[in-house]
């Protein structure tokens, strides 16, 4: 079915859109709020902040997470920082500059109005978090400290050592706890959403499974918010937590919710390289390290000398060479491709030749080991644990890894998907980062959506609904519950012998090779057919074992991997359709002579929104044209 997309961007000047919108949308009166129920899936930054804020407003909230505690959601692992246009450094920052950097960093594939709102709200986020007791880094005068991140020429990143995500999430978790304590939020940990209840075209609730008892329960609600994160684990090896998955957003897609720009995935340039077949995940080394670390490879191909033995004039600081004005702080997509280019050309380091050096010796000489330790101590320890080398003495070896997904459920300015009553927040939606996200912007977006956008916009939808008019007795609830049960039975009945992970690994390999850092028409076509074959093998030869009545981690995995197979295909279809290179999406056919991305604004200045249907009965494309009234589309140059 073709989608009707109404982005609901308010009219008027960019700076006034959000204020005017807030002043004109419908409200639910305080006395009526408690009559409305809202289900929030996921307790990361977006989910926890949304659930807490809804609770504060007086809505009746149910919050779900599959982890054993809401505090363990994957936002906890974000390292580097959170951007905000406070201009505390007096270095020329402003809301407009943060907006512009984000739009440009996203290679002009995001909506102006959404991004501007994000930049406006960034300052409120810092205030809110500090008031909650988030211990951001401070200078000796007792005021907040900042550092720089890629793609920006100002220092606007607030941080708490290399554990900013942890501290922000613990702030949101505390706000959530306060509401649980007050009785406005009911918390359901170790509970996974497996389907949505859609009735008469509206989202009316969710079907969840208690992962410890296996019990399948419907929860009806007047609105549902998916804050379920991204889909980097489609690559199997990524920096995401092991249990991150696409199931919630993919279930929404199956019900007809538009999925936008699935091929926009971010490959982070600084992850610890793969060490062997046993590898279960990749560990990120924060982008903030590039403030003080210099990236290089040997000038000679296949140089196997130890880094200390390679003299200065035989080192190629390729980021500084290729992008002199941004140097080691070039945006992620650019830095990742540059690393791949060097390694593909035979200059890579480490046992498999898939690595480049991130060298701190200059910074240690200049600032002393203590300063570097105070800035990045936990990251250095982590590196030493994993790689078995001391990064104070020898350069880190790093290589790009899947990290974040800019694509996600299509949402309008109110963050509502194409299914009325179903909202998406944080990484789960597509709204703010275009084709490439700048560092320290994910935390900003998650919290902007949860603390400030949704609490305002959800009322506009709810005000038009009669509260509690839908109940669990409805036939559509029974049907949805039956569907979930059947699907689980299907996994339990698989009679093969191989673990689910075996097929997930295979899928990941295909996606990394053919829909990863660079993509081509032939590669993508091969990938689509290979995905089909592996999926077939999975259904034939995988084994889940156990039963559905208690904790069964293989059963959880099987459901998630099955959805990844279907989703992976859509990702390739989208990548095939987008015949241009922009941001994290690099099509080999579309590059300049010196290997830079070649964008095609004439043909592809749109959000690609997919829904089930279309000519082959699979995926149909609807375009949301992007118009830029406040910035000039330019070739993105960091040279």
């Amino acid at each position: 079915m073709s989608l009707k997309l109404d982005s609901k961007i308010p009219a008027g000047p960019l700076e006034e859109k959000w204020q005017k919108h807030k002043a004109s949308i419908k409200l639910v009166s305080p006395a009526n709020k408690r009559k409305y129920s809202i289900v929030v899936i996921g307790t990361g930054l977006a989910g926890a902040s949304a659930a807490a804020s809804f609770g504060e407003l007086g809505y009746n909230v149910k919050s779900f997470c599959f982890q054993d505690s809401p505090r363990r959601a994957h936002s906890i692992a974000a390292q580097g920082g959170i951007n905000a246009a406070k201009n505390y450094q007096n270095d020329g920052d402003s809301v407009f500059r943060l907006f512009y950097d984000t739009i440009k960093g996203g290679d002009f594939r995001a909506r102006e109005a959404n991004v501007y709102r994000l930049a406006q709200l960034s300052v409120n986020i810092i205030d809110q978090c500090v008031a909650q007791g988030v211990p951001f880094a401070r200078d000796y005068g007792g005021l907040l400290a900042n550092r720089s991140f890629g793609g920006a020429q100002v220092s606007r990143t607030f941080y708490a050592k290399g554990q900013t995500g942890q501290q922000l999430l613990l702030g949101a978790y505390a706000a959530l706890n306060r509401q649980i304590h007050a009785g406005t939020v009911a918390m359901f940990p170790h509970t996974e959403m497996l389907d949505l209840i859609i009735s008469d075209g509206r989202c009316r609730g969710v079907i969840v499974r208690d992962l410890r008892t296996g019990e399948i329960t419907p929860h009806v609600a007047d609105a549902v918010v998916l804050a379920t994160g991204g889909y980097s684990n489609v690559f199997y090896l990524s920096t995401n937590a092991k249990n991150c998955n696409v199931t919630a957003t993919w279930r929404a897609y199956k019900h007809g919710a538009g999925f936008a720009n699935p091929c926009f995935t971010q490959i982070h340039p600084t992850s610890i390289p793969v060490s062997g077949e046993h590898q279960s995940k990749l560990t990120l080394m924060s982008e903030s390290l590039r403030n003080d670390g210099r990236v290089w490879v040997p000038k000679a191909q296949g140089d196997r000398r130890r880094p200390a033995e390679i003299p200065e004039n035989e080192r190629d600081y390729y980021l500084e060479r290729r992008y002199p004005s941004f140097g080691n702080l070039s945006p992620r997509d650019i830095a990742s491709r540059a690393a791949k280019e060097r390694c593909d050309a035979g200059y890579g380091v480490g046992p498999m030749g898939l690595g480049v050096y991130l060298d701190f010796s200059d910074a240690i000489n200049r600032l002393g080991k203590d300063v570097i330790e105070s800035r990045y101590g936990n990251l250095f320890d982590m590196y030493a644990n994993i790689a078995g080398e001391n990064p104070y003495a020898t350069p880190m070896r790093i290589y790009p890894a899947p990290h974040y997904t800019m694509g996600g459920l299509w949402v309008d300015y109110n963050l509502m998907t194409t299914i009325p009553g179903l909202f998406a927040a944080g990484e789960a939606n597509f709204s703010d980062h275009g084709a490439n996200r700048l560092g320290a912007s994910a935390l900003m977006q998650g919290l902007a959506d949860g603390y400030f956008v949704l609490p305002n916009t959800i009322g506009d939808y709810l005000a038009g609904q009669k509260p509690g008019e839908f109940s669990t007795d409805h036939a559509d609830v029974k049907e949805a519950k039956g569907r979930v049960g059947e699907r689980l039975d299907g996994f339990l009945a698989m009679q093969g012998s191989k673990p689910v992970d075996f097929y997930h690994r295979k899928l990941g390999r295909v996606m990394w090779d053919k829909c990863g850092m660079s993509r081509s028409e032939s590669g993508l076509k091969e990938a689509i057919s290979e995905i089909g074959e592996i999926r077939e093998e999975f259904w034939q030869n995988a084994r889940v074992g156990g039963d559905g009545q208690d904790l069964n981690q293989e059963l959880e995995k099987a459901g998630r991997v099955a959805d990844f197979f279907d989703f992976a295909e859509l990702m390739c279809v989208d990548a095939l359709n987008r015949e241009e290179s922009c941001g994290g999406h690099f099509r080999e056919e579309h590059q300049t002579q010196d290997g830079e991305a070649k964008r095609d604004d004439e043909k592809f200045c749109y959000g690609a929104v997919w829904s089930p249907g279309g000519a082959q009965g699979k995926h149909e494309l609807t375009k949301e044209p992007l118009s830029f009234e406040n910035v000039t589309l330019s070739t993105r140059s960091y040279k």
Partner: protein
Amino acid sequence: MDLTVYVWRQRNSKAKGSFERHELTGISEDSSFLEMLDTLNGILIEQGNEPFAFEHDCREGICGSCSMSINGRPHGHKKLTTACQLHMRTFSSGDVIYVEPFRAGAFPVVKDLVTDRSAFDRIQQSGGFVSVSTGAAPEANATPIEKEFSDEAFDAAACIGCGACVSACPNGSAMLFTAAKVVHLGLLPQGQAEQTDRVLSMVDQMDKEGFGGCTNHGECQEACPKGISIKYITKMNRDYIRATVKRAVSLRGKMKAQ
């Protein structure tokens, strides 16, 4: 590496558990402890046996999901390291390794290596927050905070809520966990207004959950993968005594008024 591993097998909280012995060969030194368990589980599945359940997620040492003791120590022998960050190169080929769930009365076993640590959440819900609703915050730089206090608050706030402290304590006490939050908020101006109520209700909830008291063994600090210092327990005790007195005085004041 070749290893002999004894892994705890327990169907559910009511069933009796026991160690199950497995021999592993060719484990990579570069793999993490959990990747070694992944390998074991893969073999079990291919043999038609049930894999071991264990809690894990980020595998970067920050989410706090890991809840296993290795050779009798929560998270294993390496200091300041979670089980997921423990690498096999710190073992030797031929080693015998025992893996079991965190042991504590207040953490019942759910299955195999998975324990129920929801008591921690309930302690946090009882007062581990600053009551500031969204939108009510003043300008962030309006209140300067001495760097020393702010850094100390961060160190306390670095707790990942894994429960190693409880498991390592002979009394099964959650004092280190509770103190970390009480001290984190108590060191900051933002946390002052509610500090009295906070410390009283969090300690009260901790007792209700069945955690033991602190008798200064110091095992919690030894086991903590994030290096949370036992000095926070002292600090919390001080706050607690002050709060008790304050509460008593204010109750007496109310009685007089009657």
